């Protein structure tokens, strides 16, 4: 590598800061060759869309969690040693409690700004999980997980799981009455696992519940293991986004082979960098204004007390709901107990959900036989089955979530817990399929509407009376942006049914699997509304032109365009009355 490079070679007219920056760039480049990377990447183009910020929110709130968390580690004492509280929160003075809880009280009342950072940590964590969930919806519904981005989807599922682990382990650290109850439930779940559960629980907790080891063990997991893994996965996640380039929504000039957007330097540097500060600032403002997890109200943990209306953080609610609505099945085999009432909702169901989530891209690719690279996003309506599956999953999740708050709902709406629980036990099986069908039908209806727009243009609202008395509504071609978006739809034909025995009489060994695949492919694509052919669109254009020709004489009026826009499509020319009143006034003048 030569010692001269663009940064060093053009110091003319550079400000002192730029000269210094160039100097640093050269210094670093001579040691790591960084300018090759910068030269290629500073102008990297990223597409613009509001939904692409969801992942950014997740990233930035994670950074806020890291920053505030580092601060908290300086003050928090992860110990279950019993101490007598003697801080400045009067109602708990003189009460015996664990050092973890006492130090959390100190952070909240005696460290200036401590409460702010604690609440920032908690709020940013809630936002982190929420942003991951919504980001995942965006990726799922637009098909951004398709080839070549399957790995990144799996990394994302891993990150979502780790985010839950990070959240739950953090929630459990302060050792207040609420968090301890959460741990007791977690222990009950571990204990329900057949064969290894009892021993597993004893090893995890260092003996019986609550023991004296768990908070310090959880602390290591919460501040080192889980965030370390998240940081590692996030890094790979972003590196993949970088090398694969971001997906983009269909639009004018956007193809599967290009990226249309703004360059990293300067636009995204400013926008993304600025957005970090926006997220950081909003987390701080919320933390300053809205109390979260007021542990001082709950009191120290003791295993023989609990308060009514115990609620976990929002992202654990669906699992708690699953536990609540599960019927009480337990079986006894050869002197051993299998607690299906815990195992199914808390171990098996989440296991299936996360596995299905991780495998979905591969399942869909197999069913559809689609091996192409996809950089242009799907509009959810153009993949009705996938969209239906997504809404079905959200409905399932939502019902479980309602279950997690069944006691609050019962007291707020004066219902009985029994009726809510029975309602959920039934609807958890009934509503998701209904949601699927309804969503799929809505998507297909929207596809039909798109097809109509291509074939007939849009309705202008201008009604034209033809010389022979017929009334027609004038249609116009949709604008170029909408045209580009709608025509981006790619039609995929369902796979043909396989033959059982071919023409030469040879039996098809893979018949069963191929037939399943063909059926699933039909399920995915058979109902699709095909996009009009070019000939059809041309014919439609011809029809629209015909309308326009009929209307043309009227456009001869001066400023017709302006008038049309100004009067909601009523043809109007200068000198004509604008209102009935004006018209009447005109008459009396005559």
């Amino acid at each position, binding site marked *: 590598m030569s010692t001269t490079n663009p940064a060093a070679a053009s110091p003319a007219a550079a400000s002192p800061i730029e000269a210094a920056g160039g100097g640093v760039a050269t210094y670093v480049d001579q040691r790591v060759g960084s300018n090759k990377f910068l030269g290629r990447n500073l102008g990297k183009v990223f597409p613009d869309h509001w939904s692409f910020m969801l992942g950014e929110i997740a990233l930035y709130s994670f950074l806020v969690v890291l920053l505030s968390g580092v601060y908290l580690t300086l003050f928090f004492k992860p110990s279950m040693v019993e101490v007598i509280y003697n801080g400045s929160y009067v109602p708990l003075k003189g009460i015996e409690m664990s050092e973890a809880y006492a130090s959390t009280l100190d952070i909240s009342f005696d460290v200036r700004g401590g409460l702010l950072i604690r609440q920032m940590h908690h709020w940013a964590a809630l936002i982190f999980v929420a942003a991951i969930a919504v980001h995942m919806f965006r990726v799922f519904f637009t098909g951004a997980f398709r080839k070549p981005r399957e790995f990144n989807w799996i990394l994302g599922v891993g990150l979502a799981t780790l985010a839950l682990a990070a959240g739950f382990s953090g929630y459990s650290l302060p050792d207040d009455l609420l968090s301890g109850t959460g741990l007791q439930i977690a222990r009950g779940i571990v204990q*329900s696992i057949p064969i290894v559960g009892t021993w597993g629980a004893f090893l995890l907790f260092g003996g019986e519940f609550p023991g004296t080891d768990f908070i310090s063990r959880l602390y290591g997991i919460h501040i080192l293991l889980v965030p370390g893994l998240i940081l590692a996965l996030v890094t790979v996640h972003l590196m993949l986004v970088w090398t694969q380039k971001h997906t983009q929504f269909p639009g004018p000039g956007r193809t599967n082979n290009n990226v249309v957007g703004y360059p990293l330097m300067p636009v995204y540097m400013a926008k993304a960098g600025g957005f970090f500060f926006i997220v950081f600032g909003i987390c701080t403002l919320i933390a300053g204004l809205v109390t979260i997890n007021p542990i001082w109200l709950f009191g120290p943990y003791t295993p023989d007390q609990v308060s009514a209306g115990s609620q976990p953080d929002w992202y654990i609610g669906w699992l708690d709901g699953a536990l609540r609505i599960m019927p009480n099945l337990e079986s006894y085999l050869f002197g051993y107990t299998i607690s299906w009432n815990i195992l199914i909702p808390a171990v098996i169901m989440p296991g299936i959900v996360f596995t299905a989530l991780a495998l979905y891209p591969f399942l869909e690719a197999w069913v559809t036989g689609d091996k192409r690279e996809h950089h242009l996003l799907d509009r959810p309506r153009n993949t009705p089955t996938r969209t239906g599956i997504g809404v079905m999953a959200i409905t399932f999740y939502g019902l479980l979530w309602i279950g997690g708050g069944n006691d609050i709902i019962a007291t707020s709406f004066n219902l009985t817990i029994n009726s809510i629980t029975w309602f959920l036990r039934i609807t958890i099986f009934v509503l998701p399929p209904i949601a699927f069908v309804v969503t799929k039908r809505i998507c297909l209806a929207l596809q039909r509407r798109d097809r109509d727009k291509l074939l007939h243009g849009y309705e202008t609202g201008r009604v034209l009376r033809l010389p022979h008395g017929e009334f027609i509504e004038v249609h116009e071609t949709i604008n170029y942006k909408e045209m580009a978006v709608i025509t981006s739809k790619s039609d995929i034909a369902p796979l043909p049914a396989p033959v059982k025995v071919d023409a030469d009489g040879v039996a098809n060994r893979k018949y069963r699997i191929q037939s399943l695949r063909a059926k699933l492919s039909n399920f995915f694509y058979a109902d699709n509304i095909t996009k009009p052919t070019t000939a059809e669109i041309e014919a439609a254009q011809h029809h629209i032109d015909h309308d326009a020709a009929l209307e043309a004489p009227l456009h001869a009026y001066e400023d017709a365009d302006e008038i049309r826009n100004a009067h909601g499509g009523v043809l109007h020319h200068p000198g004509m009355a604008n209102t009935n009143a004006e018209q009447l006034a005109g008459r009396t003048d005559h």
Partner: protein
Amino acid sequence: MTDISTGSGHGPSENTPAKLGYSPVADIPHRPRVADTDPKAARRAERQVASMFMLSMLFVVLFIVAYIAIDKSATVYVPVFGAVGAMNIALGFTMGVAIFLIGAGAIQWAKKLMPDVEVVQQRHDLVSPTEATKEAAANYERGKEESGFARFKIIRRTLIGAMVLFPIPLVVMLRDLWISPPGNPSPSELLTTTLWEDGTRVVTDATYLPIRPEDIPVGGLVSAAPADLPEVQEAEHDLNARGKAAIILVRMDPAEIVSQQGDGWDYQGILAYSKICTHVGCPIALYEQRTHHLLCPCHQSTFDLSDSGNVIFGPAARRMPQLPIGVDAEGFIVAKAPFAEPVGPSFWERG
């Protein structure tokens, strides 16, 4: 700046996008912003951005002032939020605004003053060129050949064996995450025993006072513990014994008792049940005296205490274990026997 979507208006600068590897989108009409055409508007945007950065600095100063000046126990009344800690709200507001304004300024700068012309960059194939793949394959084959991995069967198999075995010590050492107490009881033994024995006095769980039957009115509920709990807790330095031994005493009209887990396990209508839910172990104290129902606040399992503590609704699969009670010579309530079944959530070895 004029509309450059046609590629003509950007000027003869060295840094034309085409040279940097991207070009403006030819077929998208571009509408110039006010700040692109009106120098006054551009100046105004510049001033807006700079004032946001300026205000951000000001709020940092205010933060420092608040940090020093405000008493940390002071509260202040804020409409909507009510009485809140003055320190927290002042620090949060000043710091939040200071940080937020940096972001808002940067974004305003990007939106108003930086180019808003969309540009195009071509994607490149992710798949490696054929030569590179061939080279990789050739290198791999050469390595396999030279190492003899394919030829030396015994090396290969022993290596795989060694790789499988070497993590075992790492797992084995996890055994002492739980150091068994003296006497080496198994987990299920520990889960099965509590402090309750024949003759253990029943005391209130907070003040440890012994209880006489006449202290509990009909319809009343008392949270209770074994009398030796304080000493045990003192000796063991943990809450494990408390977590297992917690009970509740309820009193009902003896005529209303439908069934019990053992004959005469009540004392004059006073029944003692474990307080730890048989579902996942939450302590239960929501008792409806009219129906004798006990409701778990965590997952809403409901038990009927007048009918052997049987489950009548919810996810719990087992009845609440009952503790047989009586009174001692001094007239205080005592346990007549240990729990007949393990308390708390189910586990594999429970049977």
